């Protein structure tokens, strides 16, 4: 694990309870720049809650979150995004009435601090649109750029979700079950995209699909009932008896 000063994302002592229900217990995590970390755990372990705590949609009871050394635990979610923390959602969170390309272009416009302009109808929108198109092409969905999101098959919507997060040029990217619910023939496209993500971004991926995790992650953190059970290289986790027990003895790989 890297030291706090060079981490892309550094979490110390994160705690959160709802009355008697503890959803995060003294969580300590470091993501180095370019990290590929997988977060696994049974349902209800608190994985998505953790992401919500990181992104600011949930306030922790205690703990610090440092993004490239700067504390962000008191910042509103939209400010954290502007600092370089992006996420995808477990359930697609898209602008369904807009076309695919505009979903990305709007994010780019926001990133470029162009989206607040009230009066000027500048040609920068075209630039945002072009950059969006290029990004969609990288992800292999440029051909549906003009289609309305609600017409898109589920797998392509998941890809769009990732594309929007990437368009923000984040330092840290949190992927919440990117391939969940996607039919097998479309899932491989998502796996391809995951493999080709920019190497300077630190990525934390929540997944249930063990194949994806083991192919993608260099380090795995196992969460159970809100606390970190264990962490380590994939090979080590695969044979860890505690982890196996957690997954009811099922073979992990």
């Amino acid at each position: 694990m890297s030291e706090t000063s060079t981490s892309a994302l550094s979490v110390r002592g994160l705690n959160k309870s709802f009355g008697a229900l503890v959803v995060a217990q003294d969580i300590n995590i470091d993501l180095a720049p370019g990290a590929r970390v997988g977060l696994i755990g049974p349902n209800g372990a608190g994985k998505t809650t953790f992401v919500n705590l990181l992104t600011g949609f949930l306030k922790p009871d205690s703990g610090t979150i440092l993004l490239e050394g700067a504390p962000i635990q008191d910042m509103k979610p939209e400010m954290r995004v502007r600092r370089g923390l992006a996420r995808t959602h477990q359930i697609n969170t898209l602008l369904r009435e807009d076309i695919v390309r505009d979903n990305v272009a709007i994010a780019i416009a926001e990133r470029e601090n162009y989206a607040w302009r009230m009066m000027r109808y500048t040609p920068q929108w075209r630039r945002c649109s072009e950059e969006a198109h290029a990004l969609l092409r990288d992800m292999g969905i440029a051909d549906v750029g003009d289609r309305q999101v609600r017409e898109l098959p589920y797998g392509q919507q998941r890809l769009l979700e990732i594309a929007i997060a990437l368009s923000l040029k984040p330092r840290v990217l949190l992927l919440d079950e990117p391939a969940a619910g996607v039919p097998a023939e479309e899932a491989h496209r998502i796996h391809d995209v995951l493999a080709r993500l920019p190497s300077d971004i630190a990525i934390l991926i929540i997944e249930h699909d063990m194949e994806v995790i083991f192919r993608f992650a260099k380090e795995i953190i196992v969460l159970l009932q809100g606390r970190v059970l264990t962490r380590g290289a994939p090979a080590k986790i695969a044979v860890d008896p505690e982890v196996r027990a957690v997954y009811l003895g099922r073979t992990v790989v």
Partner: protein
Amino acid sequence: MMAAPSTDTAATTASPASRVLSLIGHALPWLIAIGFYFVAGGSLSIGTQIMIWILFAMSLDLVLGYAGIVTLGHAAFFGVGAYAAGLFSIHFMSDPILGHIFAVVVSGVLGVISGALILHTTGVTFLMLTLATVSIIYEYGNQARWLTGGDDGLQGMKVGPIFGTFEFNIFGQTAYVYALVVLFIWFLISWRLVKSPFGRSLDGIRQNPRRMRAIGTPVWWRLLAIYGIAAAMAGSAGALLAHSTRFVGLSSLSLLTSGIVTVMLILGGTRKLYGAFIGAAIYYLVQDSTAKFSPYFWEFIVGGMLIATVLFLEGGLMDLGRIGRRFLARFQRSDAP
């Protein structure tokens, strides 16, 4: 239902013929308004009142239609603007332009303050807060007879000539042109606003606030901005009302007024700006004509129209054109071999 403001591609690929048609479509309401001035004779004041309600409904379109802020308290800004203009003319000076500016500022500030207090909430809680806001202001207006005249209304307004030359008189010509110009100015502002990047981000907020926050949009600030602008615009409509009728009544602050302007907008169609034109005109004319038969018949009709619009015509009456075209298209396709 109209999607978000069109991207460049749609505009550039439009054929010259359809562009001319759209230009005519844009010019039409203004040509009608100008033409009405010359042919109306004694009914000019009806046109003035319709334009006041159009402006009011258009301000609601910004907030409700484009930004998705579901409020029933918008009459608060309309009424406050009217009272501000009225009180300015009684206590300060009778110049209507200065009074108008005063009213716009007052209602805009009220919009920003009330918005800042409540815009972090959503859903029914927010709706309730808007109801509470307009009720507080209404009841205060009712109480403060010394200021507002209570339920007798504000008496004794003196409305001076515009720019010192154009007098208000019983023929209502000055009032009509005054309202038309104000409406046109606000229309231009609204048009630029909704087509701008800011307007686009509002549309995103309407569709999915969570998504917008996830791309770094300062949602609360954007909503506050449009809420304040719309409040100022509603206050402007209120000022027009005060100046054109030289009277301000409590009803301008009432929940019923909020309901009426909402009905107008929904009837005409949200997110089209022109929906406000159609809705306000139709509502006003229906009310005016059925009031002769029975004063309550129009309320019944409007309620029915509202129910029917929600159930069948989600885009308002302006949707009839689109539905008609889709209907015809279905016939054409079935003709194909």
